[in-house]
């Protein structure tokens, strides 16, 4: 961890968003993670994305499970309500929170242990409900807080710091999500902020369950030679399949795209993401092709990053439940309590 708390004074020249806030208004408490931890870079990217989207901090809700990754919601957006749940159970809490109030922006931060081991069941069921939230997996292949055990995302042959070699096949979040019907699947790298920030913005704008699997090296327990989740390994082996440019509502697309390369996707709030294909062929709206693409590159030892799959047409949990806009708690009591006369008529069926 670093030991210097920055003073809460913004430089007058700092850019301001539509709410007249600077990126510093999206900061949280000082991080207590190890210096150089990939998670801190992701925290920075979240702040930047929320700032650029001009989300009022108190209209965001931050949720997490247990683990190093799950500590991070304390390190951004102090003015947002935070919910550090129990291990692997953040998706259910997010489901209930979202059911009660669809109007907040929900950001979940979890890790590979929290998501793919103890929490795999809840994670996949949030996918099935197409819960409207952004879910980040800070994926380092290792249990940090308990000092270096392999997680379910550790690759076969990956070597632990103490020398042990992982034998069990990993659970790949992207492939698992493709198989279970997820509507927004991305992969990125904590060291690639340029890619990560627009992905977070796109994920927060997506109506439905958006997952970004972010390779986020653990500098203390999994950044050595022989690890497949180290900075060096990830830099060397990652390749971008799709670049996502985020275009906010009411803004024109100014950039020039080569013919056949750009694919605009209309989001529910009026914004757009423009997807640029690295190879000119890949179609991130084709689930079958995405599956094949990721697996083919995996065999070749490459980690495919970028927005791997998107489907903006599927209904989310609220559309399926036909709930009204706004928090359920703010419905007037007369609307939710049928009253004395109705109770009398209900009882006539029980005589």
């Amino acid at each position, binding site marked *: 961890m670093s030991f210097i708390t920055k003073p809460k004074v913004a430089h007058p020249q700092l850019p301001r968003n539509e709410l007249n806030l600077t990126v510093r208004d999206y900061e949280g408490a000082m991080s207590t993670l190890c210096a150089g931890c990939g998670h801190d870079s992701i925290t920075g990217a979240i702040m930047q994305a929320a700032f650029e989207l001009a989300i*009022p*901090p*108190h*209209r965001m*809700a931050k949720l997490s499970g247990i683990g190093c990754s799950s500590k991070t*919601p*304390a390190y951004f957006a*102090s*003015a*947002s*309500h*935070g*919910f*550090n*749940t*129990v291990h692997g*159970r953040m*998706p*259910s*809490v*997010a*489901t*209930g*929170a*979202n*059911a*009660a*109030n669809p*109007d*907040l922006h929900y950001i979940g931060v979890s890790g590979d242990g929290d998501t793919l081991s103890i929490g795999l*069941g*809840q994670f996949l*069921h949030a996918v099935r*409900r197409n819960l409207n939230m952004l879910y980040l997996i800070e994926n380092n292949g290792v249990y940090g807080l308990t000092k270096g055990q392999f997680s379910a995302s550790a690759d076969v042959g990956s070597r632990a710091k103490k020398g042990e070699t992982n034998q069990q096949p990993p659970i790949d979040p992207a492939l698992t999500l493709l198989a279970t019907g997820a509507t927004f699947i991305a992969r990125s790298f904590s060291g690639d902020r340029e890619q990560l920030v627009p992905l977070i913005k796109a994920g927060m704008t997506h109506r439905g369950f958006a997952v970004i699997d972010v390779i986020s090296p653990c500098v203390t327990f999994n950044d050595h030679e022989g690890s497949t989740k180290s900075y060096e390994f990830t830099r060397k082996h990652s390749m971008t399949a799709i670049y996502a440019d985020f275009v906010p509502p009411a803004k024109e697309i100014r950039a020039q795209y080569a013919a056949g390369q750009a694919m605009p996707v209309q989001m529910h709030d009026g914004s757009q993401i423009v997807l640029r294909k690295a190879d000119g062929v890949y179609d991130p709206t084709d689930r079958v092709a995405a599956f094949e693409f990721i697996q083919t590159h995996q065999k070749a030892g490459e980690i495919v990053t970028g927005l791997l799959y998107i489907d903006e047409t599927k209904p989310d*949990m*609220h559309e399926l*439940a*036909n*709930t*009204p806009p706004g*928090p*359920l*708690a*703010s*419905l007037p*009591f007369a*609307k*939710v*309590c*049928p*009253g*004395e006369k*109705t*109770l*009398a008529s*209900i*009882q006539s069926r*029980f*005589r």
Partner: protein
Amino acid sequence: MSIASKRPQDNDFTLKIGNVNGTGSASANSMLMKSLFRMGIPVCGKNYFPSNIQGLPTWYEIRVSAEGHLARSGRVDLMVAMNAETYRKDHAEVATGGYLLYDSTWPRSQLFNRTDIHILPVPLSRICNENFNNARSRILMKNIMYVGVLAALLDLDMNSIKQLLNEQFAAKASLLDANQKAIDLGFAYARENFSCPLPFRARTLDKTRDHIMIDGNTTAALGCLYAGATVGAWYPITPSTSLMDAFKKFCDKYRKDPETGKANYCIIQAEDELGAIGMVLGASWNGARAFTPTSGPGISLMSEFLGYGYFTEIPAVLFDVQRCGPSTGMPTRTQQADLMACAYASHGDTRHVLLFPANPEEAFYQAVQAFDLAERLQTPVIVLTDLDIGMNDWMCRDLKWDDSYQPDRGKVLTAEQIAALPKFNRYVDTDGDGIAARTLPGTHPKGAYFTRGSGHNMYGAYTEDAAEYQAVVDRLRRKFDTAKDLVPPAEADVDPRCRTGFLTIGSCDNAVKEARAQLAETGVRLNYLRVKAFPFGKDVQDYLDSHDRIYVVEQNRDAQLRSLLLLETRVDPNKLVPVLHYDGLPILARTVVDGVNQDLARGKAA
């Protein structure tokens, strides 16, 4: 005189039907019970069904009691044996002087050889085969036909039965005719072949006015509807499933916005009980009234989150419709064996507010109270019913609702209140009741705080500081003391000159009251207290203090209520005599009477 040796009389007898599950006997049985109810006679029905869909034995027991004793009677005056597999057992169970009716299409005169009871052979299958064509309807009509036979034997009101048939088959005229025919055939056969009515019969009374016949899962669901619960999360588990089924039906009907057609509720079938309680906490954190119905195994799974809810102070309402444990136990049998598991669910110093309704009527009112308490105290509240309350039809007084009711949302700060604060601190107790004000996400930029199950101080910040941590858990203890004054007081019937009494809980109520009346007839007078909540209030302590001998009646093996009293009050353990019933069937008055008499006999011998 003990109930077992009492002779059946008019409007005072028990009838039991042994059947095969999945053959449609439920509607026949409910018709029998309702026709008695509509004749103005107090009645109750207990369903002993298997954890199975089709083919296993199932029994339905109807007790008729003009005096209004509606616990299980523990005797059978008239057995309708429809299941050859259980003939032997059913035959043995009939009280001396009683009757056994069976399908004599296949005569079993050698098996049914008791000379102290009367055998009533009725060739139900043969009559059905002669009168109905289709194979399935022959099975169903056989069941309806015994309603006709019993109507003749017990002199049931045929108009009530006709009316019930009309209501049941309002939409299917062809079925109505077939059912009516089956009843008439059974009625005619009985009239021709037996001396009708039997020496004990139903006689019209006026004792069910302003009452309904209803099960506790339905009334608990109504309570949730009326309390304004908007989020229900659940995982199906017997015997609690019908609670959410009922809530969903009520919501479909009464919670659809007439203008927009939108659903003013959100019901989520979770992937498991861990998910269900997580959803409830998430929704309550966001201000909605949220609940989950479950049973013992679900409570075990929810325990981690229950501790979280306690420590982070999030309201939640749970219904534990208790069934037989341990482990999977007997899912379709009743018990009160989750008291300890619920009171201290989760690791660490954790304790929960519990409510103990005695019947479906109380389940309605306590469901509403549970939401008020959960929000006032900012903590999970568990309403403990059981299979007997939840799934059996009970005769209850009409449910009342006061339209001036407003939900108690507890200490939730509005945007204006937050704005006026110099700084919001989540866990600071400003008025000494142990309850700190909370804010809902999205209300105001100054209202944010971090909810965490890890050590936190009174400002909500992470801490590992000894004093800061201890200040928080000490306040939680104070909050639990506040709860003592907020929970409903016990039901008491106390003669101050009497120093001996009962202390009981939940669905033991009827059996203990009946036992008390019987004991009084033999000159043994006992006071009565039924706890309705945990933590125990001052009234419970006073009762314990003012009695020398107390019979603690409950439905579990390990005397869990007695254990809770020993842990949470300053009672002398020697005063508390356990009276226990835990075989999975609802408690009998006889168990209670015997328990008291045995203790009195021991006292005399000593």
